[in-house]
């Protein structure tokens, strides 16, 4: 007998929660306890009075598991709303990355040229290095990073994505 693995799909969940102690651990713990996957997770306070945070979770799993994830999250008392952006229709996903590239001569010029193509900003510079700030879809960041790999990539930091539905309605 061998362990079977099922086909999975990727989903982006926007979760609005009470900003209370331990809530992030509770949500992360729910994912490990029930064997769900976390590909990326971002969290930040989004309310004026610091009462509410928004957590964006990218996960993957078979469809019925994704549905369970949503239901299990909604069962947690501090969770207000769970919106599956991938189900709700068209949505925007953005991620921010800081990318450090070191090098001299032609590589340095080429890095700067590509940064311009990708609309990355230079946020730090020395005579032998740059830090680029790049915002976009995860795919865009992936392609920029892979280009930089040839030109002296030193370090990458990524935030994980935040997402939002298109159109006038809120999540």
């Amino acid at each position, binding site marked *: *007998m*061998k*362990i079977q693995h099922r086909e999975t799909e990727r989903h982006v969940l926007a979760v609005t929660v009470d900003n209370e102690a331990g809530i992030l651990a509770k949500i992360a713990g729910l994912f*490990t*306890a*029930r*064997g*769900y996957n976390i590909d990326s997770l971002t969290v930040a306070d989004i309310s004026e009075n610091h009462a509410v945070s928004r957590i964006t979770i990218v996960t993957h799993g078979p469809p019925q*598991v994704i549905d369970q994830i949503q239901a299990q999250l909604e069962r947690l008392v501090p969770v207000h709303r769970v919106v599956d952006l991938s189900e709700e229709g068209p949505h925007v996903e953005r991620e921010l990355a800081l990318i450090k590239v070191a090098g001299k001569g032609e590589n340095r010029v080429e890095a700067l040229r590509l940064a311009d193509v990708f609309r990355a900003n230079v946020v730090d510079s020395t005579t032998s290095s740059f830090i680029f700030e790049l915002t976009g879809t995860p795919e865009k960041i992936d392609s920029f990073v892979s280009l930089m790999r040839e030109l002296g990539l030193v370090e990458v930091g990524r935030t994980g994505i935040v997402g939002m539905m298109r159109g006038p309605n809120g999540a």
Partner: protein
Amino acid sequence: MVVERRPGTDIRAGSVFSRGRETGPVQVKVNEVSEERSGASILVESLVRQGVEFVFGYPGGAVLPIYDELFGDERIRHILVRHEAGAAHAAEGYARSTGKPGVVLVTSGPGATNAVTGIADAFLDSIPMVVITGQVATNLIGTDAFQEADTIGITRHCCKHNYLVKDPTELAATIDEAFEIATTGRPGPVVVDIPKNVQVATAELGDGPVQRPKRYAPNMVGAPDDIAEAIEMIANARAPIFYTGGGVINSGARASELLREFQRLTGAPVTSTLMGLGAFPFDHPDWLGMLGMHGTYEANMAMNQCDVMVNIGARFDDRVTGRLDAFSPDSKKIHIDIDRSSINKVIAVDLPILGDCATVLEQMIAVWGSRKPADLTEWKNRIKGWCARDSLAYPKRDDAIMPQLAIEKLFELTRDLDPVISTEVGQHQMWAAQYFGFDKPHRWLTSGGLGTMGYGLPAAIGAQLGNPGRLVIDIAGEASIQMNIQELGTASQFRLPVKVFVLNNEYMGMVRQWQELTYESRYSNSYSDSLPDFVKMAEAYGWKGIRIHDESELEAGIKAMIAHDGPVFVDCRVAKEANCFPMIPSGAAHTEMLLYGDQVAGTLEDEAKALV
């Protein structure tokens, strides 16, 4: 089981193309073929390779494949307990008394949750233990399946490390690493959660050592500069003290020898935590007794007044320090610990030394070299003055056995037999620590950090298995013993001659003592009502039962207990309202000890009541 042969692989393994040509007839070496085995079989084989003698466990649905592998396997003896808490504590007792890791096997859900107290206990007392828990099949995890519990989540903060094994190919490496993590660095419990389908699914297991990345490397050797500085501080001290803890015991018997050697070189007086008893001999002239809440007056005063404190494998527990701002205010503190997070956690120290106790003591002895001990006459005279308070004195009574006397008598009559002592938790535990003498490590098994009632009987069972032929006594209270009383059956089944010596005062004595001191003797729920007839109960389990009512029966009762070749339960009726002194009341300083003579009753401020 059917061995799956892989054509192609074994031809290469048999070296048809090279050796075959040179030596003539081709011989395919069958034993070089790795066989496919079930996860359960890989687990059992891995345990055997780790040298495991005993597995303490209880079967259930999610571990049936493992139990089937154990069936008829004579290399590992399975000790069937009566409750999973008993399995975990028995493994702790085995580990603490032998220095080898204890192994626990329980099923998913309630099996695992019942073992959690023992896991937490082993975590706080740094006991090496590997706990195998069954889990529902991987495809059922997260569905609230029958007997599903999030074992990994539940044990996350009460074990040193845990794993959920999702594929049998990972099993051998996981078990190998689990034992390494449990037994090296600061020891502790490691939980390995194995879903049922992973136990059934197959993978290869090679014959050689497991290949895996090495990612755990605790720091064993102290930094030479720190060692040199420590030796300067100790050599120049006029009032030094060694404050030793469970780390010395965990570091192995060699650490206790080195401690004695280093003490001989320096002449420093020695005190120990509850967990460290036995590392230094109780009858040594420089032994101050245990320190802390129920420690001796001289140990606590010496801690308060010393100029250089050398903490060897202890952790400044709140039961030891008393009020923090009054803790040894004028001393320079050296702290030897293998766990970086223990350093500066509670008490800021002047010189931390990160390393293993035995290794660091060896380094210190080498650097000390041929120095002569400093003249500590003045310091030792002051200590003599504190000893003269005779803080362990207690009032004698004619109409009842004082519990302290019972322990003294038990010690006197068994000391030549070099017994292993376990305890439950409460007054009897403290009396055992105060009035029983220990001169070797691995003889004292007690639940120190977590304070788990019900620890002693299963721990004694584990210790008896690890120390066949040795006298093993659980010094118990009538309340604690009932928390894992079902394990009497385990001792009967495996013919273990453990002794249970209950100091029966018909109270949860320590709770009652605190109620006396802080709640004007309102004994809320701290009495033992509806007690069973312990002698009849012991007999019902096939044990010998002995009841001691009166001091005149004490010696004969203890001798009969020792003489009986089998398990014995002694119900020793003691003075009901005896209290455990000396005592540093909660929130008080080392210098504010209560001795028996000046015991007080009353109430406390809310701030003091809030302290545990």
